[in-house]
């Protein structure tokens, strides 16, 4: 304790910035060596070293020669996939999946939150929430398993309709299946954040509105919508920023050989062409291209949030 104090006094007396920093580090070495080190090492090893690995996007990668020994091909991989009609289709599939997913999937939790907020009995509301949140905990595989069972030619949906469509083999059905099952699974859970924002809506304001004879629509306009508008806006901008990062797991689990025309997206293509076919360089180039579009989108969306949010961005 006493040595700490004397060090502090010395620093206060004179000595540069660097000296100050060194004294701080010596006093608080535990913060560096014990607290932040594990996270730092994991980040450097598993995040930054692979970033260096993107060099193979510009190489004809040969596993035996390694990243630095393989033949350099410049932008050849990029030229190849950017001029390929297949790639354009995968890009469009990815975009359509996320844009339509956003269009349908984004309003659903907001609607649920408004409805839940209006349920008069707290007990009933809690029971409904319990049901709505449950699908969120089902795994992607089980979800897609349920979807496949219900939609199989002899499954429940076909029995109800009296038909024997094989939905899983129809490219035109894939997006609907993907988006609808996404809403089924995620809308309840996603409504939590709006429910929380709605519960912050001033009770006084709402009571005043009721006394003034405002009906439900007017109350929503005057009290509830203003309470969640910012949340809605930020959630929306974040979703737009993530438009190119459609997850691999669910799309892959809903793919069949026959619906690939609409179900092959960039992330599944990167996996197949890279790990299954062994075209490491080409696959990395496609992945890098996707990442760059994503970064540009995220950064521009962050700028928009900053403008709207008094200089405070998401990151």
């Amino acid at each position: 304790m006493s040595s700490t104090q004397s060090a502090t006094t010395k620093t206060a007396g004179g000595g540069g910035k660097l000296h100050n920093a060194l004294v701080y580090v010596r006093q608080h070495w535990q913060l560096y060596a014990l607290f932040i080190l594990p996270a730092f090492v994991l980040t450097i090893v598993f995040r930054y070293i692979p970033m260096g690995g993107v060099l193979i996007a510009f190489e004809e990668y040969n596993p035996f020669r390694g990243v630095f020994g393989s033949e350099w091909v410049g932008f050849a991989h990029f030229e190849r996939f950017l001029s390929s009609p297949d790639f354009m289709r995968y890009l469009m599939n990815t975009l359509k999946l996320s844009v339509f997913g956003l269009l349908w999937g984004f309003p659903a939790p907001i609607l649920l939150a408004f409805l839940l907020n209006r349920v008069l009995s707290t007990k009933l509301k809690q029971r409904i929430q319990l049901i709505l949140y449950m699908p969120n905990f089902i795994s992607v595989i089980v979800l897609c398993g349920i979807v496949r069972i219900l939609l199989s030619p002899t499954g429940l949906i076909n029995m109800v309709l009296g038909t024997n469509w094989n939905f899983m083999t129809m490219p035109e059905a894939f997006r609907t299946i993907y988006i609808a099952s996404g809403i089924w699974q995620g809308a309840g859970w996603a409504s939590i954040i709006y429910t929380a924002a709605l519960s912050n809506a001033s009770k006084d304001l709402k009571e005043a509105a009721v006394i003034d004879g405002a009906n439900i629509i007017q109350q929503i306009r005057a009290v509830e919508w203003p309470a969640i508008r910012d949340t809605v806006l930020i959630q929306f901008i974040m979703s737009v920023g993530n438009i190119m990062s459609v997850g691999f797991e669910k799309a892959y689990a809903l793919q069949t050989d026959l619906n690939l025309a609409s179900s092959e997206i960039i992330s599944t293509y990167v996996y197949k062409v890279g790990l299954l076919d062994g075209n490491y360089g080409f696959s990395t180039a496609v992945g890098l291209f996707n990442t760059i579009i994503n970064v540009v989108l995220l950064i521009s969306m962050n700028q928009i949030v900053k403008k709207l949010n008094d200089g405070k961005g998401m990151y």
Partner: protein
Amino acid sequence: MAKKKASAFAKLPAEDKTIMVIGYVILLVFCLAIILPMVYIVLASFVDPVTLQNTGLTFDFAKWTTTAYERVLSNSQIWTGFKNAIIYSVVFTALSVAVTLLAAYPMSRDDFKGKGFFSLVFMITMFFGGGLIPTYLLISDLGMLDTIWAIVLPGAFGVYNMIIARTYYQGIPRDLQEAAEIDGANEMVYFFRVLLPVCTPIIATIAMWNFVGMWNSYFDAMIYLNSASKQPLQLVLRSILIQNQPEPGMVSDMQSTAERAQLAELLKYATIIISSVPLLIMYPFFQRYFDSGIMAGAVKG
């Protein structure tokens, strides 16, 4: 309760009543859409496979059978899957919670020198990454292919969870820390004895997310693990539910291809139920932390 509800409803103007009724109906439809498929799968899992395929669900109990459950439960691969999923999820949760909570502490302190640098290093990974192949090559070079480390280490530090924990720490009154420092407590003592005990809601929330996330994922296991003995539950489920390839022992005693196909279909129902039981048991425990989840989610916004 019901009376109060009814009277509150009765007081509403007529047009509001209409809106309320429509709202309740939408909620009801949504809840039914969630429950009915689940109920259907539970019931159908007991129906004789031939009947199920030809006429669908039946309440003629003479046609019910537990054969699907017997076959799935007597298959060792399912149990191996459960065992591996528990190991991976528990190890991953313990590791990631420890690393994340530790890292969040210096990042929560205003006086931490180098905060800007570490912030930048961590934030960049939220935008940019090496992608599939470079990460795969790294895991391979490190000799971690087909080991548990390929599954639990790369994602052990989550920047997003760190931000949530950091924000939570910052909400803890500074007085606590000052009092501890006057008492001569160093960082370790303060962190473990003072800070962590008051942070249990956020710790539980992060632990729950990480556990559920690991339990439900299959991608990393699919690309990094080859041995059947190391597959987590989701991969075993994948071969039964998605690839239509039940574990060999489950259907091999059936004579015709048609019988095998019908049985394989029924096995899916039982598999879904069996694999969901742990989740249903844990659901009430998770539920306690939904509220802190809300709070943490609000950080994002």
